[in-house]
């Protein structure tokens, strides 16, 4: 194998590779952040909402989670233009991944919240907190501990799912890699490189997750 040719090609295509990595990173980050916020709202609705809130939330989780991400990506892209929403491929892709992420976060949060004892809510009520305060100070911090490992898995899933945006023409890392390969035919080398970059992004997410996890485990103050 001619390594100097490979390195040469990497250098020649470095702008494209960096751009592809940046797109992958950006779309994943948007999906994870926006999806988490939306997912928290859905998780609360499905766990504590009254019927008119609970049912749509439940339906949302079941339908979106039960749909292949590729279908979701294609549907968002084509349906949005059909209804007159002029989204770019990037916007449509980010929206699809956000919706997907929200359904997972909603379900993860529901599981964590339901594992908490009902006595926690009652104790919060007894000291005069309203539901907002009970959720913020009592339920959510506890649920976060339960949910964090699964949440990290979901975040990593989003990065992997972002590869599917290549089918609607978002020049993320995979599509960029394919375009480079079509010029130089270094199949193995460039797919391997892409694999390493995906691994590094996911590895970074897991490290951030572990860091948050350790912060949560720390006692409020000195522990004996």
């Amino acid at each position: 194998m001619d390594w100097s040719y490979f390195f040469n090609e990497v250098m020649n295509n470095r702008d494209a590779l960096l751009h592809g990595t940046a797109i992958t990173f950006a779309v994943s980050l948007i999906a994870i952040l926006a999806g988490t916020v939306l997912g928290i709202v859905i998780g609360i609705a499905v766990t504590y909402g009254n019927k008119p809130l609970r049912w749509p939330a439940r339906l949302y989780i079941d339908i979106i989670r039960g749909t292949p991400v590729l279908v979701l990506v294609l549907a968002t892209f084509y349906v949005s233009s059909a209804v007159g929403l002029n989204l770019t491929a990037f916007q449509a892709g980010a929206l699809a991944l956000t919706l997907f992420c929200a359904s997972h976060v909603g379900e993860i949060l529901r599981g964590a919240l339901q594992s908490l004892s009902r006595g926690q809510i009652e104790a919060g009520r007894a000291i005069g907190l309203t539901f907002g305060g009970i959720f913020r100070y009592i339920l959510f911090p506890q649920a976060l501990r339960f949910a964090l490992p699964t949440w990290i898995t979901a975040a990593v899933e989003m990065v992997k799912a972002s590869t599917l945006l290549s089918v609607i023409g978002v020049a993320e890392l995979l599509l960029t890699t394919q375009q480079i390969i079509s010029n130089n035919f270094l199949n193995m080398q460039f797919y391997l490189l892409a694999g390493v970059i995906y691994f590094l992004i996911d590895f970074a997410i897991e490290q951030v997750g572990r860091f948050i996890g350790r912060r949560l485990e720390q006692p409020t103050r000195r522990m004996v």
Partner: protein
Amino acid sequence: MTPIVEVRALHKRFGELEVLKGIDFTVAEGEVVSVIGASGSGKTTLLRCLNLLEEFHQGEVLIGGEAIGYHTRRGQRARMGEQEIARQRAMTGMVFQSFNLFPHMSALDNVTLGLTKVRGMPRNQAIELGDHWLERVGMLERRDYRPSQLSGGQQQRVAIARAIAMNPKVMLFDEATSALDPERVGEVLETIRSLAQEGMTMVLVTHEMRFARDVSDKVVFMEDGRIAEQGPPERLFMHPESPRLQAFLKTSSF
């Protein structure tokens, strides 16, 4: 003088099942009232109605002269809004059978949460007051411990501090010692007794008959959703009138 707690013709149903069938009783300031009775007689439900953890369907509960939980608008009885109910709940302090401390917080933070977030007290003032009440229940040295690092008795004492630090008009104890190991019951009863001696108004649902007899000003005996007999502990325990109370006392241990 207005009683601290006044319950008038209180009715409560769970679906078809009527669990409170017209309860009337009052608690005067500084009075300690024990509610006794068999399981399923409605005593815990009654207590939970006093701080609106249970809804009720007829009758009134007044805390410090204020009707709680429901108002009548144009002849329609309606539940009050969440803010209002939260404010009214803070007028009472509740101690649960299973402690229900917040496991992700230190003992001190358990006590100060309500002070800062409900009472709006500055943090340093809340810590001062939290320390005061933790000391009062003998838990000051453990202020930085998590609930999981405390024994059941210690947890319950922290829970008492958490409730009483809010300066409630009345303290409600729901079988506060039932979930404890026998050797831990004493320390919690001692804490409750000392608060009673300081003049704290209290309603206790309890199975500790000896304690109820020693510490109460008034004992309420419940049977099948009704108050079958109430009065001073000497009379109820020594000269019970109703055959049901006589039978209940025979089966209870002292």
